[in-house]
């Protein structure tokens, strides 16, 4: 989708421009990795790019300016540190066990089958493991879902009772 006809391009980095910067992102990420360099470049998960820009775009411009972009960069660097911590075999990918450790480390208590669901859904490369950008996407989505659930779970017992319309609003507040 081309956003450029809707937003002033001059001082604003739109997500399409970020997409063009993707090789730079990949270069930056790869420079942090000590792992396998197989020379295959996959574009950064566009949904992740969108979510991250959405977080830092303070005035709902549809893009970030330079100051906000430095925030984006730091955010991604922080995620790189997390990723590296849990990519214990330094493969450049996070497998199911590493993902379990990461999410358990963040405080999640999830069943084994649910991890299969997560890998299946977030692994865009189809290797049964999660790449860096997909890992961010997975964590961001989980966090959002948990926040929404918590709002409805007033007695904090891990259960909610919701109507159809409430359920719709819950889901649409996230997607």
């Amino acid at each position, binding site marked *: *989708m081309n*956003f450029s006809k*809707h*937003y002033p391009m001059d001082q604003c980095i739109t997500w399409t421009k970020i997409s063009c910067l993707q090789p730079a992102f990949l270069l930056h990420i790869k420079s942090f990795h000590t792992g396998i360099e197989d020379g295959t470049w996959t574009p950064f998960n566009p949904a992740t790019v969108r979510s991250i820009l959405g977080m830092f775009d303070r005035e*709902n*411009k*549809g893009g970030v300016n330079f100051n906000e972009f430095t925030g984006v960069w730091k955010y991604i660097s922080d995620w790189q540190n997390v990723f590296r911590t849990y990519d214990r075999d330094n493969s450049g990918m996070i497998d199911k066990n590493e993902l379990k450790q990461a999410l358990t480390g963040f405080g999640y208590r*999830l*069943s084994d089958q*649910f991890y299969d*669901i*997560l890998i*299946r*859904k977030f692994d865009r490369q189809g290797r049964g493991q999660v790449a860096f950008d997909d890992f961010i996407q997975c964590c961001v*989505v*989980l966090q959002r*879902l*948990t926040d929404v*659930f918590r709002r409805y*779970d007033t007695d904090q017992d*891990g*259960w*909610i*009772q*919701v*109507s*159809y319309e409430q*359920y*719709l609003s*819950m*889901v*649409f507040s*996230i*997607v």
Partner: protein
Amino acid sequence: MFDKTRSGRIDVYGFSALMRFIQQWKNLFQQYDRDQSGSISFNELQQGGPQFSQLLLARYAQRSSNPSIQLDRFIQICMQLQSTTDAFREKDTGLVGNVRLSYEDFLTMVVTRMM
């Protein structure tokens, strides 16, 4: 929605059902897009349609001086609405319009149907 076997692929029947589905939504879209600009503006939205969809569409319009929704986004919203409803229906076996969900139920319902 059209991948009945949850294999991550659709066969020719799934594909033709998908095409029909898109055509239906495209027709609906064209009903709203009166000036045939290729996108639905807020003015066109107000011309009619149930309140809830209007609210939804208002939330998803691209932000600009003239917010509007294009066909692909429109279809995405409608599909999300459909699959969210399916998810709820699956749990609401008694058809009471109310369900009790555990944390992981909720996560699974949403994650498995995310696009």
